[in-house]
């Protein structure tokens, strides 16, 4: 087998994406847990760790650019490297959204919740499963799994609709809940956006494997 150095570099890139992805998965969990448990310390940790994801994105980008410049990849190699830079961007954005949720944790830490938070942690859990599945499909070059994970996003969208409807009824009944209700709506929307970014990753995995452009 020739090009073993190139293959090693590609493998390292895959590892970087996996590492970055597992940080994102953990960050989503911590951000939502900090909100539900009104744990400001945990929220601060999420906020502080955001730099780490920015660093990973730049590091992965640099490696991809270097490989393209020096190795002139084609076919699947090219598709993979081209998509890895975009996957890194999606992951970084997901980190930003978790950061936003952690900021809301800090704003709401001294207030009593207008309702108990049930659907928001559920959404976060589906998000985490999706992140894990998307990364697995990426590593195993499994287009079928990527499609399956992409379709899961519908569940997240439905929960988002449901949460917003529910919060609206609270807000109509009692205008004093508007300030908090509005913030929780943002949390729901941030989680919905995270799902969209996972879907983007799944689309890219399908492209890497089949060279086919799909949208979920």
């Amino acid at each position, binding site marked *: *087998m020739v090009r073993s150095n190139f293959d090693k570099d590609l493998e390292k890139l895959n590892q970087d994406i996996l590492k970055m992805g597992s940080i994102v998965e953990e960050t989503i969990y911590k951000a939502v847990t900090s909100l539900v448990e009104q744990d400001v310390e945990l929220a601060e940790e999420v906020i502080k760790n955001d730099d780490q994801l920015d660093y990973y994105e730049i590091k992965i980008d640099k490696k991809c650019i270097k490989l393209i410049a020096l190795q002139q990849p084609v076919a699947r190699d090219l598709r993979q490297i081209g998509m890895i830079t975009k996957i890194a961007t999606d992951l970084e954005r997901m980190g930003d959204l978790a950061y936003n949720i952690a900021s809301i944790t800090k704003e709401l830490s001294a207030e009593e919740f207008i309702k108990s938070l049930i659907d928001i942690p559920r959404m976060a859990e589906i998000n985490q499963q999706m992140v894990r599945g998307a990364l697995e499909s990426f590593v195993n070059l499994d287009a079928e799994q990527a499609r399956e994970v992409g379709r899961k996003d519908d569940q997240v969208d439905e929960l988002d609709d449901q949460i917003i409807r529910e919060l609206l009824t609270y807000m109509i009944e009692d205008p004093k809940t508007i300030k908090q209700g509005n913030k929780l709506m943002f949390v729901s929307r941030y989680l919905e956006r995270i799902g969209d970014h996972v879907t983007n990753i799944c689309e890219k995995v399908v492209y890497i494997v089949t*060279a086919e452009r799909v949208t979920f």
Partner: protein
Amino acid sequence: MANEQIKLMIEDLDFYYGDFQVLEGVSLKILVNKVTALIGPSGCGKSTFLRTLNRMNDLIEGTKVDGKVLLDGQDIYDKGVDVVGLRKKIGMVFQEPNPFPKSIYENVAYGPRAHGIKDKDELDHIVEDSLKKAALWDEINDRLDQSAMGISGGQQQRLCIARALAVNPDILLMDEPTSALDPIATAKIEDLIENLKEDYTIVIVTHSMQQAARISDYTSFFLMGEMIEYGLTDKLFEKPEYKKTEDYITGRFG
């Protein structure tokens, strides 16, 4: 591909050096005013294939051809085909620039003269026109009477292209035309190929896959005497259909 005009149609071509079979059942279409690149590892038969297209292999003793090569529908291997006339229609440029040890002017005028043109004005016109088409005129029009051996390698190669163009061919065959040139001279030849395809049909053998990707419209991948894959260059380099092609172009061959 359906509405493209076919210049050369190769059907089930076999080729032998003595008992040794070099090409096996190659079928391929070469389209008008397109650049078709032939790629593949050393010894895969791509240069031999190129040379079957204007019967250059006839010059080697003990070779044998089966199958058809149809130029505008006419088999070039039919009995009674005028091989000199054929090579006038299908010009060739080689790996190493090989100008004649004559003046620049005489190099270009040689072909038309051999085909019977004697009129000085007409020859002047052909020389100027060919050198312009080969993007060489501006660089050397003040020293046409100097020896062709005194110009740079890149200029010599463009002179050889001008020499091939001087007999007004339909097709240009190029056998690794830039492998002996530096990157700047290579870029000039590549630009030239892009311009020439407006008027000519070009088939190029290249060892540089990046070159094939840069300049060709269609690419054909050869391996051990067989044509493995043929298709639009864009597609072949983004999503090759066969694993053998993918292994070769991604450098995982062997």
